[in-house]
């Protein structure tokens, strides 16, 4: 099959998917105009689109975006440094690792973000509450993936190191750690995604911050098209963040 035909064949389902989505939106528009769906519950898609401009102009979208991003970056930085360091430290002693790994996995399955009222009391209604919750909630996967990466070095690679009479320090930094890096990156990426989810969520809940707060505020003002538009913004940022981190992960792992 020619290259052109292959590309066409690959594009068909994608186009189909997008077309279905647009058709759905158009259908909703029609149903609302026909009076079959209550416009006070589901605003017209055309109204939503028009409110985008208003939102951008009047609601300081850019500063909000930067605030949310700033919180996410700060939390991600803290996550990576703390998570990898703790993982490395825990890995050094087999007994410590055995004792703590299952506990950390258990903590990871608990709804840690529910502690946000507690953090509100400690840090007040500020960006630090948001950053700290994201940090705490997203820390376990980074630690666990770091541990997993370090523990799952293929034994033959360690044998190679021993056969070349590497010192323990060389063995660690030239073989164990590089071998663990792909898994560690997966953990950092997971952590960053959890962090963003929690950040936007808590911004919404405590009505402070960037994009999450915007959704809450518009909802409280009963600005329905605006609320929907703000939700779209949140989805957009989240998707871009997800794709971006995916690309970075792929770029950092050349041999895969």
């Amino acid at each position, binding site marked *: 099959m020619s290259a052109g035909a292959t590309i066409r064949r690959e594009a068909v389902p994608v186009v189909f998917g997008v077309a279905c989505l647009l058709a759905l939106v158009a259908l909703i528009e029609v149903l609302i105009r026909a009076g079959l769906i209550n416009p006070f519950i589901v605003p017209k898609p055309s109204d939503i689109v028009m409110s985008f401009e208003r939102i951008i102009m009047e609601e300081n979208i850019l500063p909000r975006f930067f605030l949310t991003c700033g919180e996410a970056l700060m939390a991600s930085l803290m996550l990576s440094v703390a998570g990898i360091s703790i993982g490395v430290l825990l890995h050094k002693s087999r007994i410590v690792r055995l004792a703590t790994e299952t506990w950390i996995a258990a903590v990871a399955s608990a709804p840690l973000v529910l502690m946000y009222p507690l953090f509100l009391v400690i840090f007040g209604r500020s960006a630090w509450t948001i950053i700290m919750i994201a940090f705490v909630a997203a820390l376990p996967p980074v630690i666990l993936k770091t541990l997993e990466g370090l523990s799952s070095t293929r034994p033959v690679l360690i044998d190679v190191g021993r056969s*070349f009479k590497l010192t323990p320090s060389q063995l660690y930094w030239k073989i164990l750690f590089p071998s663990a890096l792909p898994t560690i990156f997966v953990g950092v990426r997971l952590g960053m995604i959890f962090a963003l989810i929690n950040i936007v969520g808590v911004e919404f809940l405590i009505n402070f911050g960037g994009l999450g707060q915007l959704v809450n505020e518009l909802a409280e003002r009963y600005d329905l098209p605006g609320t929907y538009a703000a939700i779209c913004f949140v989805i957009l940022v989240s998707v871009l963040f997800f794709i971006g981190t995916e690309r970075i992960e792929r770029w950092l792992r*050349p041999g895969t």
Partner: protein
Amino acid sequence: MPAADPILVVENIVKRFETQDGVLTAVDDVSFNVVPGEFLSVIGPSGCGKSTLFNVIGGLMGGYDGRVTVGGETIRGPHASIGMIFQEESTFPWRTVIDNVAFPLEIAGMGKAERIERGRHFIDLVGLNGFERRYPAELSGGMRQRVSMARTLASEPKILLMDEPFAALDEQTRLLLGDKVLQIQQDLKQTTLLITHNLTEAVQLSDRILVMTYRPGKLKRLVEIRLPRPRTSEIVSSDDFGRYVAQIWSDLREEATKGLKDDEARRGGEKSS
């Protein structure tokens, strides 16, 4: 009969393991010598303790009776004069081919420019020129084993110790890589100890072959391979080759059959309870 002073002396190695089924003797009083420049193969069925022997000689395993000396010195862990090539995939996936091969030079503290040049020499030796900057994931299995080989050769060991390095490859690739190994060994006059279960490979490459029994692994027979040198894989079609293979197979078959029966007995016993 080898006349020169042996470079590797394996004396009365006994290695036992504790398992759920009791004490297992993997290697039972194995002794042999290797002289400089020779290619010695140790062949035996699965379960004859060959890999244990590999790890013992390589210094990766302790807790055994007997001793191993290299150039008169008893080993205490991996010895600098022994280079090991493993059966499994052992290239570092995060390093390029040249960085893999230059690894032992990097450890030895050699400067970057120098070790790239030395590394190139060994990449050339295994026939992988042009692939210096590739990552192992981009290469085939056979090519990756060649990278591992080049990496070990780059440390210029006095003795090359290999554990079934071609086990994962298909027969034709194996024969051709065998040619490469022969050529390198003959060029470098590299003392080589090969652990294998592959009969044709052993006869193709070796000066002498040690046949081991099934567990507990003892030396059953020592066979001198008087095929002409230099050799290539074409030797496989000669009559003498066939005779050696037949001779060694009769020994091997007996041991391999023991191994099979033992395996069946163990598994059958568990099921009937």
